[in-house]
């Protein structure tokens, strides 16, 4: 609700409500002030235009009501500050989850990609060393000879997390400053060279749930691009065979077939319903430094981890 009103992205995190609420309240305050001021302003310039009021009044406003108004604004600002903003920040930087099921992930930014490191079954991150960095095969310089490093899973631009479990992401960068931005998680944190900065959150919706909400109906023929879009359900032809499969991309061929079979309206959603954005200018590729966030049900997450491990073994 709040998100819609303000035009924010969908919120899929537990703490995001508080951020949204603060954004909402401060905008309500701003709006009330602005409307009040502008009403007074327009009334005043209309009433005291030269044509209507040829002689100005030397003193003008005689009351000091405005001082009270200013005091009230100050108090409201303090309320937002002390009531929401400061406590939230304290939660953000010091109340890190300690539950045993907390997922720990490391993100190492670089020009222009997000390297992601999972500690693997042993739960401990392997050692990294810049001497081992190889742009193609080992971008983070992971030491596979370190016992803890053997089982570490690394990906580029693909961040997978389970839903409803506390997550801690340790952020750092190999080169310049980037900013790790998960719009739907209301997470944004600069990555600073020479520093490791952790953030924590809990996802409350899976990627599939997000996709449902982002789904739109497309009417053929369409000028809209279907790049990166997938069908939201199976669409079968007259003979009963499936033309467009749920979760699959839709090619021009598919569209033609659909139209032939009299289906002119389909529901599509984004293949990746959540993204990692880079929010800090980091060079000429800043604009394309995009990663993907996939939020799984626990079982799917475990499956994904297993697949990764198997791949690692080969």
């Amino acid at each position, binding site marked *: 609700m709040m998100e819609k009103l303000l035009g924010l992205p969908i919120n899929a995190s537990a703490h995001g409500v508080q951020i949204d609420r603060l954004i909402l309240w401060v905008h309500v305050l701003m709006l009330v002030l602005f409307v009040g001021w502008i009403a007074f302003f327009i009334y005043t310039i209309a009433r005291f235009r030269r044509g209507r009021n040829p*002689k100005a009044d030397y003193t003008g406003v005689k009351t000091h009501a405005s001082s009270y108004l200013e005091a009230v604004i100050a108090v409201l600002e303090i309320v937002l500050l002390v009531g929401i903003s400061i406590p939230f920040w304290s939660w953000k930087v010091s109340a890190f989850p300690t539950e045993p099921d907390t997922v720990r992930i490391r993100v190492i930014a670089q020009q222009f990609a997000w390297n992601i490191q999972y500690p693997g079954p042993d739960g401990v991150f392997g050692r990294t060393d810049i001497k081992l960095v190889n742009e193609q095969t080992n971008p983070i310089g992971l030491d596979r000879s370190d016992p803890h490093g053997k089982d570490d899973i690394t990906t580029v631009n693909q961040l997978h997390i389970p839903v409803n479990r506390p997550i801690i992401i340790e952020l750092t960068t190999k080169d310049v400053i980037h900013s790790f931005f998960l719009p739907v998680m209301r997470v*944004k944190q600069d990555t600073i060279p020479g520093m490791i900065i952790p953030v924590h959150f809990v996802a409350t919706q899976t990627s599939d749930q997000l996709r449902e909400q982002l789904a739109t109906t497309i009417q053929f023929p369409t000028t809209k691009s279907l790049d990166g879009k997938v069908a939201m359900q199976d669409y079968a032809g007259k003979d009963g065979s499936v033309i467009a499969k749920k979760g699959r991309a839709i090619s021009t061929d598919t569209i033609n077939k659909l139209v032939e079979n009299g289906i002119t309206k389909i529901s599509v959603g984004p293949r990746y319903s959540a993204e990692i954005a880079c*929010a800090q200018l980091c060079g000429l590729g800043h604009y394309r430094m995009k990663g993907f966030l996939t939020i799984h049900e626990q079982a799917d997450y475990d499956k994904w981890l297993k697949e990764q491990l198997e791949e690692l073994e080969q």
Partner: protein
Amino acid sequence: MDQAAVNYHGVPQTHAETHDHELSFWRKYIFSTDHKIIGIQYGLTSLCFLFFGFCLVMMMRWQLAYPGQALPWPWLTKLLGDARMPGGVMAPEFYNQLGAMHGTIMVFLGVVPLAVGAFGNYLVPLQIGAQDMAFPKLNMTSYWVYFLGGLIMLGSFFVPGGSAQSGWTSYSPLANITVPGNSLETALLSGQTIWLIGMVFLITSSLLGSINTITTIIQLRAKGLTWMRLPFFVWAQLVTGFLLVLAFPPLEAAGVMQLMDRVAGTSFFLPSGLVVSGKELLVSGGGSALLWQHLFWFLAHPEVYVLILPAMGIVAEVIANNTRKPLWGYKSLVYSVVFLGFMSFIVWAHHMFLTGMGTAINAFFQTTTMIISIPSIIILTALILSLWGGSIRFTVPMLFALAFLPMFGIGGLTGLPLGLATADIHLHDTYYVIGHFHYVVAPGTLFALFAGIYFWFPKVTGRQMNDTLGRIHFWGSFIFINGIFMPMFIQGMAGVSRRLYDGGTTYLHAEHVLTLNKVMTHSAYALAVVQFVFIGNFFWSIWRGRKPKDNPWDSTTLEWATPTPPPHGNFPAGPPQVHRGPYEYSVPGYEKDFIPQHLSDDEAKKKDKEKP
């Protein structure tokens, strides 16, 4: 006092005039030490830079609305060359260059020199009844150092690799490693290095200029011009001067250090263990990337108030004059502006909320940021309340000044969510921030500067600007500038990052707000068209404008007590004596609705009886 008075009146008035004729063209117009000529030089130069900065952003706006499509102006593509525009399409590096230089030019070469260099130089001595600035030669030096700094900045477009491209903020390590030199020569001849050298010039110029302004205001006020009789504009310039004197040197220090990093291979801003493009960066390390940000924002936050305070000063003058009544709450205006200046030194880290701060520091900077919004609110409230009871003349300068109020209101109010760190998590580095500050600097400061130009144009040139064209300029600008900046809030809320070469096309969360890019771009082009009305009016009026009387707006402050335009030495009848406050409009008991500051009660009474 006596000795001073003798000295003052000891200046024979004809003396100045006879000397005037002995000056060569060069001394009179180019290497002049007259604050008015220098003010005009600042004004014309900075207007050209403003226009240039606007041209840069218009190229960017094309790319934002139509990413990957060739610019529609083939001649321009040809001019820019293949390196910048491969196949007619803007290269990402070039987009970043344009962005960094747009910010730099608008702030350091456009608005500040116009607001402080031009308006401050021209008006402050006149408004305080002085014959010139305290240090005329230094004044000339500041202008020429500024001019050189500007040329250096422009020159940076032409070196290999192009100009600076790491944002106007030049964050390290990006600014250190972008187009680095393998040798001293290439390091020196690279855009970022030249940017730093240019900044050192601009900083030096600003320092000299503001020392001059402060000294002038403190030392050269006319007799009887007490602190509480100063026009608000002069107060604004005084506080601005202090901001510049105290905030710029740390950036100069930072600039020197980044220069050392680039040229001498030091690591002030480079921590150990960086890997750039797969190769370990071979430097001694041990530096701090955040150090640059602290030093930069320690300047740059006060700097944004440097952008706004003179604007507020101009608006105050224009409002008092066109409501025909004194400003409401003059004293609270003065105290607020001084408090604002002081506070602006302790809010800088609100630009750095997401760099990993702890709760205590974060709470401190959030709180100071909330506190600093209060004096702005007091100032704006006083200005709005000043309208009440007035007899408002909707002249062109007044239109711009009135529009300033709600526009600054939008810009200022949107500063509040940014100042609350928790809300800033989502909004930081999105178009919301771009929207916030453009509302304060473009329909805010720029409108105030337009108001000032229309208002003092007759004083400077002895000609009036055309009224109808002025109105067209106002309404056109007002509509289109909102068309540019309002949609930015929507994009920002949706999470679209700033400084994106493709305007967010890559991102899913930007998909539904991408069409706004076209709205903004076309508004920007329409705004540009309207500016030609202004430029035409400006030059046409210099030569062809109607000749006004000496005090065309029936104003009270001292600059109107001189002939129009003022001669060398400003006050041919000797420095004025001030008898009253700056805004004695519609004083009860008088026929005329204004009493100039320099008239004694007797003179005022006598003048009042005269038939117009």
